[in-house]
């Protein structure tokens, strides 16, 4: 609706504009056709489109696109390079960690071994000392037992003579007279049994 009323109003300005379009044939007719379907403008539009688009195509193909392509390629290269570098560094770090752990394990094993050795040595030492002491003690014990035995034997022997003496004295006092030494010894012996 609006469009048609606008069309109706068009005849007046069209006539007024007629002077400005001196190059075209019929000024009034220019407005009768819808501008995009006005075949009179086609040659000019095609020509200038071909010129401008052709130049644009060449410019993009020769200048812009190689440049953009190079920028993006360089960036992609750089990214892959950086990723490789990062991967290499990570590998190095991993290797360092592995080496460190191995050394740590070795050191631990060494420490254990040294500790064990010291322990064994100390034990052996203690064992030797103990055995020596035990042997000494054994010897002393043996000596002591021997001396006790000899003392005991001596004492026993003396106990026999004392008993005989005492017996003979008691018998002499009770019975009177002389006593036979051998008889008394036999009597003591049988009594102490």
């Amino acid at each position, binding site marked *: 609706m609006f469009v048609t009323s606008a069309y109706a109003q068009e005849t007046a300005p069209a006539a007024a504009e007629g002077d400005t379009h001196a190059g075209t044939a019929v000024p009034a007719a220019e407005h009768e056709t819808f*501008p995009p379907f006005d075949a009179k403008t086609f040659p*000019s539009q095609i020509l200038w489109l071909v010129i401008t688009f052709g130049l644009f195509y060449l410019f993009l193909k020769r200048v812009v696109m190689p440049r953009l392509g190079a*920028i993006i390629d360089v960036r992609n290269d750089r990214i892959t390079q950086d990723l490789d570098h990062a991967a290499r560094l990570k590998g190095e770090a991993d290797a360092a960690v592995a080496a460190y752990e191995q050394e740590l394990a070795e050191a631990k094993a060494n420490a254990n071994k040294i500790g064990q050795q010291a322990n064994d040595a100390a034990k052996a030492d203690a064992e030797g000392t103990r055995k020596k002491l035990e042997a000494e003690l054994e010897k002393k014990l043996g000596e002591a037992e021997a001396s006790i035995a000899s003392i005991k034997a001596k004492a026993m022997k003396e106990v026999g003579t004392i008993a005989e003496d005492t017996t003979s004295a008691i018998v002499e006092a009770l019975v009177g007279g002389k006593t036979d030494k051998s008889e008394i010894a036999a009597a003591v012996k049988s009594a102490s049994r």
Partner: protein
Amino acid sequence: MAADKVDPIHQFQIHPIIPIHIGGYDVSFTNSSLFMVATILVASAFLYMSTASRALIPGRLQSVSEMAYEFVGNMLRDAAGKQGMQFFPLVFSLFMFVLVANLIGLFPYFFTVTSHIIVTFTLAILVIGTVVVYGFAKHGFGFLKLFVPQGVPGYLLPLVVAIEIISFVSRPVSLSVRLFANMLAGHITLKVFSGFVVSLSAFGALGIAGSVLPLAMAVALSALELLVAFLQAYVFAVLTCMYLNDALHPSH
């Protein structure tokens, strides 16, 4: 002047700036030519200057250029495979040209190059011409296999081939009309709603209050047109990629 303001067709008029006539043809340098030149200058300058530093870490403008480049590159690779990359310059310049022409056309008082059917048709013919020429050069008559789909029973073949030929011939038409009609319709709608604002506000206070509605509409439409400007450039480029794929692999 009042008539100009509300006339939604006026913006599509072409008038010569430097009249040139060669061999009976009017090939004047017109406002359309001016905006074609402006389109390629703006697009070239943007692409050239934003990438001038060749920064490893791109700035905003360089990112935009790289995004456009990779966007079109991926589009073409997806549609036509690695072989299709030989057409990358063509598709990229088509995309950038249409996109920038559409965007420039959104400025008030600026001419929209792509709102003229002859421009979009010439670009479509360029695409289809490339497809046909490359197809025959690469595959010879094998390119005609494009019209003979595999696995179709013999008695259906004439019908299918006819349909395939019609669909192929209608491609440049649909390709060009889609872009042209979108730009034309969008600009007319914008102009009509903006025209409402102007004519309504002439009716005093009530009119000015009422003109808020079409103004809001015009704002919303401007956003929509921005989307359409990008979308149509994208669609044009995508279809170009698909047609080029036919030239590369005619037996589908």
